[in-house]
């Protein structure tokens, strides 16, 4: 083993598995975990569809039905849609920007473990029949101390804490890695659009997620220690919850959707065999979407009796966000239309499926953005149809395109194209059969979140159709699963760059070695692998007795210094267990926050405390800023 391999290798066995800080191992684990939650939450949906297939059905009772849709929505939003995008990004971004790990590897491990434990908690309490019951947005007073007895809503509130901490950690990783660890020459204007999309998403996470954490903390203290935030009898206000929730909840939709836009911008040019049209316009559109998304939250509250002037503002903002989204769609269409020998492989099929489904969802969104129409359709199946068109069409289809596209990089195996086509068509048809009828049901007045309906309503046939569509989606997911399993068992490895793509993750082997790149490449274009001469040059002299990465300058990515990253450690895992004990304990007693903080503190100190032998090694390669400054300047001059 070369010193480089030795330095980046994990310990063997279970200890290595628990203590790894490799962004690829953690990222892959993260993706698989979110997919397991996706499958579980999907099965809850299947039970709901079985229940609704017939009028006056008594397969499940009202209480279980409440838990089914609450856990389905909560898991899909907090345990699948947001984290899966971050998980993919935590795997890919270091590869796409040409570095060897994320900026804070141990924090990355901690974020994953915390997410896992939080998600397991949700499904365990559901299995124990004490799952959340007040919907994924958990409105007070329904979720408050008066109407939600027991611990159900407390578990919901703590699930939020778990997942939001994990998401915030991911956001800081992504911003720092993308801004400070890009390969020399990769200026901001050459950063891949997926990386841009994730940076924008991460900033949205930083400013949106604190709102829901605060809201759910207020809720749990109302329930546990009798604060009065949401109690109108004592000066509290139930709409405070809705404001805090949707100030997070609306950006959340874009937090799910913007990464998908980034994936499309990677997949589409590869198969169109040309650079994406309008790179700068795309970046501006992403940033515009992020800003506008913070001005939309009240459109979820049009029926709460807010002042009309405010309503008009939010109507305008809601409709305005269609502009940057439309701009991107036109750029992609232009890219495809001017492409050379466009190859309709499975990843591109999913992207095209996105176009059809998302545009329908976007149009119903513009409809719901108008106060008048919203007042009629609020809380009806029309909204259920709309949100699934935007979320599944806008995020899950591109995500599956992403799976087919990056699967060879992650595993070293190609997925079957043939099965991929079956997967796509079953999903596409099943999706429309399942969700299109819901528009009509909503217009006919079927309210969401009812566990059954009477035969006299005349809703039975469309509901049955919808259920058939849902099961077609289930079959398509089964095809995907079989495709994955068969491909992993098949012999023959995927090449470095099976699609002849242009970005750096395809420059290293599939799957990449622990250190990602044997030497860091220097790049001079947005599509480095399509250049005649790649790499321009190579970085040498990174010390290899410790895990080191090159830190570059924010804007122009000129070499700045060498950062020594932390080594594998069991502490993040232990700290996540301690944090879990504290959070779960606090559902039962507020004192858990006090005694639970002690093990958290101990594990965090253990995590931070430097190892003697490692500190000595650090000292042996240390170059002080004052000693190295001349070299920084010399390199900058040589490069420019």
């Amino acid at each position: 083993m070369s010193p480089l391999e030795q330095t980046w290798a994990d310990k063997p066995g279970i200890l290595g598995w628990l203590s790894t800080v490799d962004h690829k191992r953690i990222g892959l684990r993260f993706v698989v975990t979110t997919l397991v939650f996706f499958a579980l939450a999907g099965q809850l949906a299947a039970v709901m569809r079985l229940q609704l297939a017939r009028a006056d059905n008594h397969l499940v009772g009202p209480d279980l039905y409440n838990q089914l849709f609450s856990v389905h929505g909560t898991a899909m939003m907090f345990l699948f849609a947001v984290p899966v995008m971050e998980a993919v990004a935590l795997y890919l971004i270091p590869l796409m920007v040409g570095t060897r790990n994320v900026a804070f590897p141990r924090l990355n491990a901690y974020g994953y473990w915390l997410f896992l434990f939080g998600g397991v908690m949700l499904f365990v309490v559901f299995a124990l029949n004490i799952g959340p019951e007040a919907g994924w947005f958990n409105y007070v007073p329904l979720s408050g101390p008066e109407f939600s007895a027991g611990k159900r809503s407390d578990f919901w509130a703590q699930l939020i804490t778990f997942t939001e901490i994990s998401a915030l950690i991911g956001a800081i990783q992504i911003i720092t890695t993308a801004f400070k660890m890009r390969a020399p020459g990769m200026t901001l204007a050459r950063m891949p659009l997926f990386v841009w999309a994730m940076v924008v998403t991460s900033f949205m996470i930083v400013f949106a997620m604190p709102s829901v954490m605060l809201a759910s903390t207020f809720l749990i203290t109302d329930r546990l220690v009798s604060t009065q935030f949401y109690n109108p009898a004592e000066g509290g206000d139930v709409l405070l919850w809705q404001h805090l929730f949707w100030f997070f909840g609306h950006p959340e939709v874009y937090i799910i959707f913007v990464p998908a836009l980034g994936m499309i911008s990677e997949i589409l040019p590869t198969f169109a065999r040309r650079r994406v049209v309008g790179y700068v316009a795309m970046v501006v559109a992403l940033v515009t979407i992020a800003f506008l998304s913070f001005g939309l939250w009240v459109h979820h509250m049009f029926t709460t009796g807010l002042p009309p002037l405010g309503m008009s503002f939010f109507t305008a903002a809601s409709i305005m966000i269609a502009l940057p989204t439309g701009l991107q769609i036109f750029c992609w269409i232009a890219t495809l239309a001017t492409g050379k020998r466009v190859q309709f492989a499975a990843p591109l099929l999913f992207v095209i499926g996105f176009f059809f489904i998302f545009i329908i969802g976007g149009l119903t969104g513009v409809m719901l953005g108008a106060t008048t129409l919203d007042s009629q359709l609020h809380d009806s199946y029309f909204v259920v149809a709309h949100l699934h068109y935007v979320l599944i069409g806008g995020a899950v289809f591109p995500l599956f395109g992403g799976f087919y596209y990056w699967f060879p990089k992650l595993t070293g195996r190609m997925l079957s194209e043939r099965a991929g086509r079956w997967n796509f068509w079953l999903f596409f048809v099943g999706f429309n059969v399942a969700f299109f009828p819901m528009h009509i049901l909503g217009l006919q007045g079927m309210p969401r979140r009812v566990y059954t309906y009477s035969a006299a309503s005349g809703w039975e046939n469309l509901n049955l159709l919808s259920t058939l569509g849902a099961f077609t989606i289930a079959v398509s997911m089964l095809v995907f699963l079989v495709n994955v399993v068969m491909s992993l068992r098949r012999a023959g490895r995927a090449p470095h760059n099976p699609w002849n793509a242009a970005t750096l993750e395809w420059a290293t082997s599939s799957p990449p070695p622990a250190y990602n790149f044997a030497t860091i490449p220097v790049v001079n274009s947005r599509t480095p692998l399509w250049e005649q001469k790649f790499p321009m040059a190579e970085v040498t002299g990174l010390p290899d007795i410790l895990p080191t990465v090159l830190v570059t300058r924010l804007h122009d990515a000129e070499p700045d210094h060498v950062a020594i990253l932390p080594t594998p450690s069991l502490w993040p895992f232990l700290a996540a267990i301690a944090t879990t004990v504290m959070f779960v304990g606090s559902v039962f007693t507020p004192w858990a926050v006090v005694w639970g903080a002690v093990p958290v503190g101990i594990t965090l100190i253990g995590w931070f405390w430097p190892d003697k032998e490692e500190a000595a090694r650090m000292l042996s390669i240390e170059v002080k800023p004052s000693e190295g400054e001349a070299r920084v300047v010399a390199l900058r001059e040589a490069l420019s």
Partner: protein
Amino acid sequence: MTARSTIDVSRLPTYAFGHRSLMWWATMGMIAIEGTVFAIAIVAYFYLRGQSEAWPPSGAPPDLLFGTINTVILLASGIPNHFAARAAEREDLRSVRLWMVTCLVMAVAFQVVRALEFTTLNTHWTANAYGSIVFALLALHTTHLVTDFIDTVVLTVLMFTGPLNGRRFVDVSENADYWWFVLAAWIPIYFTIYLVPRLFP
């Protein structure tokens, strides 16, 4: 095939201060997150105030004494904090030790007075939404105070025991950045808790 050109980074610094370092970005990320939490909590305070006929409902605002003493101590703690950061950038271990211990002494004083502050708010979190949000604001700030105190204790002990190397000075400098945030966040919170009920009852 010609030999590839290379960039030799072997003599580049192995750590850097301020916005050049990765730790700075982590600290700023934390500050952005926590700053948003404080901002939203203050917005919630004013939102609830808008729902109430009288503010505070009981008519008695929090006593000024301890909160004001604490504001003075906190502002003064900026001085050792500044010198600790400067000493870290010079990598002057003796001064770092001295100023960090001074910071710790002030943080202890601050926490003692903070405990007294909680007893003179003239409300309770169970009383009404006003009491809840006042306690929430103060508790949020106190959480930051306590965590940063523990942070600083650990870092100070490390400065005496080792093992040390250059980049530990970056930690000291970032710890100081975070303290600036805890300090700066207190000013709007002090204004909200103590002055708003007096100036705009």
